[in-house]
């Protein structure tokens, strides 16, 4: 009797796992996800690069995630413009190749 119950439980559990896997495999087939502008090439490059063990997958810029609300995306763009503006002002104050290509902490490009 116990063996029979255990077998039934395992069958139900196995069926649930199969259903979940099937659901995940067929989800959103009709609606391809919306991709933020500029992210397409990077994602394509990431997809095209061969899978390697022990290598972390490339991190996409925050703006590439389509889940970011448009208001947040516009704020990111605005902050990016301000930071680039400030970086360009620094370069003009003391022109050098180093300052021209100084890094910023903009989440839009990092």
């Amino acid at each position, binding site marked *: 009797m116990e063996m029979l119950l255990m077998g039934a439980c395992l069958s139900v559990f196995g069926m649930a796992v199969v259903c979940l896997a099937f659901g995940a495999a067929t989800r959103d087939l009709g609606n391809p996800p*919306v991709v*933020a*502008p500029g992210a397409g*090439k*990077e994602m394509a490059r990431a997809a095209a690069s061969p899978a390697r063990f022990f290598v972390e997958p490339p991190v996409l810029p925050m703006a590439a995630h389509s889940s970011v609300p*448009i208001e947040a*995306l*516009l704020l990111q*763009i*605005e902050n990016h*413009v*301000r930071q*680039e*503006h400030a*970086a*360009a*002002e620094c*370069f*003009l104050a003391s022109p050098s190749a180093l300052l*021209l*290509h100084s890094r910023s902490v903009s989440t839009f*490009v990092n």
Partner: protein
Amino acid sequence: MTDIDLLRGLAPDEAARVLALGERVELGAGEELFHLGDSAESIYLVVLGHLRLTLPMQVRNHEEDVLVEERSSGQTVGWSALIPPYRFTLTAIAPVDAEVIALSREALNAYFEEHPATGYAVSLNVSCVIGHRLQLFQAMWLREVQRMVELRCA
């Protein structure tokens, strides 16, 4: 008055005479001073508050006005009014209550014909404003190109 970039180098009484040619314009929060493509008849000196200069950009298939530059008290906007073809190449919006002095091209040209030394000084100041914008955006553009090169050649 000496803080106004357009009037730098002018004697205070001469600067006051140039300012007297203008007309004060008050802008409520969110009000537009000029729109991209509009005919540019006046140059503006920001007296109070600040202005957002924007350009349209497609963001997720929507046209959005994206910030390009901000101008605050003492700074000049709308120099397209002095440069052919006299069309604004940006949109200017006051995000908070602001006040500007509008100097019409017609009034300025007439005054400068009678006072060429003032015209020369103001023209130099306008060229400084334009030159600074050019150098700034040249640097910003090159930084973006550098990023594209790094992305493509990585």
